């Protein structure tokens, strides 16, 4: 199995897994969940580095560099702000 059908297979499984996982997140954590998910969507950086590193100085490379920059904002900013938020959540000490 290779190519498109293999990728679609992965897609199907991940979507089901995603639904199962996220359904268990309590309402109180929905904002950190969202910003954490946002950081994960910065995964595009992984695809972008291969495009930005060809050294060919053509348009595709510059598009890749742009994508690396934007996705890095997403990754670093997303994880840091989520961590900052989650640091506020405290249980009541009795």
């Amino acid at each position: 199995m290779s190519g498109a059908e293999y990728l679609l297979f992965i897609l199907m499984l991940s979507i089901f897994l995603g639904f199962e996982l996220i359904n268990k997140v309590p309402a109180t954590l929905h904002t950190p969940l969202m910003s954490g998910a946002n950081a994960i969507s910065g995964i595009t950086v992984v695809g972008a580095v291969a495009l930005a590193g060809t050294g060919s100085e053509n348009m595709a490379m510059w598009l890749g560099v742009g994508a690396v920059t934007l996705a890095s904002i997403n990754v670093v900013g997303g994880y840091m702000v989520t961590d900052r938020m989650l640091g506020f959540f405290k249980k009541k000490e009795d």
Partner: protein
Amino acid sequence: MTTALMTQLGYVISAGLFIFGLKMLGSPATARRGNMVSAIGMLVAIIAALLDQGIVDFTWIAAGMVVGGAVGAIAARAVAMTSMPEMVALFNGLGGAASLLVGWAALSPDAGVFTLVTIVLSILIGGVTLTGSLVAYGKLSETIGSGAITFSGQQIVNSLVVLGILGGAAMFCMNPTDPNWLYMVIGLALLFGIMAVIPIGGADMPVVISLLNSYSGLAACAAGFAINNNALIVAGSLVGASGIILTQIMCKAMNRSLSNVLFSGFASVSSEETVVEGEIKPISVEDAYYVLEAATNVAIIPGYGMAVAQAQHVVKELTELLENNGCEVNFGIHPVAGRMPGHMNVLLAEADVPYDQLLEMDEINPRMEMVDVAIVIGANDVVNPAAREVESSPIYGMPVINVADARTVFVLKRSMASGFAGIENPLFYKDNTRMLFGDAKESIGGLIREFS
């Protein structure tokens, strides 16, 4: 072991870490570590990607990462918790833009039809996410008006844009060497993002933000297909699923369908038939203090107004004074209170309110009859009894927090203007309701001074 295999194994490990991290987000006690696990997953994926042998020059990669990382770090540190919704909107948009660029860059002369379709999809979803999020950002930060912008012929214009996108996409797939079709699709996708979000009003933003969150994941997913990369597909679809679930929760909490939120808004609300009986009964800070001083069970119901007034810290102070006075204090949080899912929880957590004191709507409603005083701070539609009692009301059927069941209700409100949805609120006219007019922060400050 070849480097290609190592890269793939790295992606597998990172996917596992993402999944584990999301699982740990299921409880506030483990959530912070879960976020860390997810971040390590991202680091593993990036290192794996850098092993790619096609990379010959790291200069520009490093430059992009340093600049992007610095901007992200500064933004994450500087943002105030009240501005979280617009921050998330902005980050969503950047994620969409990155996927758009990756899809665009993936275009090569020997691309097959399947790849071309996925390139179009990543450009389309990425572009809509980018401009849609920028408009959402503008509305949330009030740089543009937060109201719904509608004009006659809007549906026709939107339909033409969609037709243009479909036509341009088809032409592009047939003539991939002609860049003009590609530019047309990019331009129209960006335009469509704007057109899709401008008609949606501020109060519906929790739905829009969740949906754009989902799109940013789906765009990464489509880009993953375009460049044949598993890591993007797995991570992108996890984010896509997360956004869709939040969207569903938000829609359910407003008793509206997604298409109703996206395409109609509350624009056609007629205000005639709600004849509200009773009169408005204002109360002074001093009298409110005497009632609170005698109370043994208080419920606080915050809304977007608390964020606007930046009142979360004084609310916490009042909570402490009440508790020292032997009173039990709980918070009732409606799912769509605020401008994004969980907005109120984050604000109160920042003010040191422990999370086990924050009750969801279904938990607080059965307890409401035992509550001596319910304090509504800057919330309106989420406590509107018309949703239960007035069948002609546009929000009829929406689940609300039943504050009127409490012995006494205090409503902290700036003036008698109606809420975002522009709907009359019969709560204000109930026998047991007292209105405490003024800025929420000042009113609560006044109560605190009475206590001390």
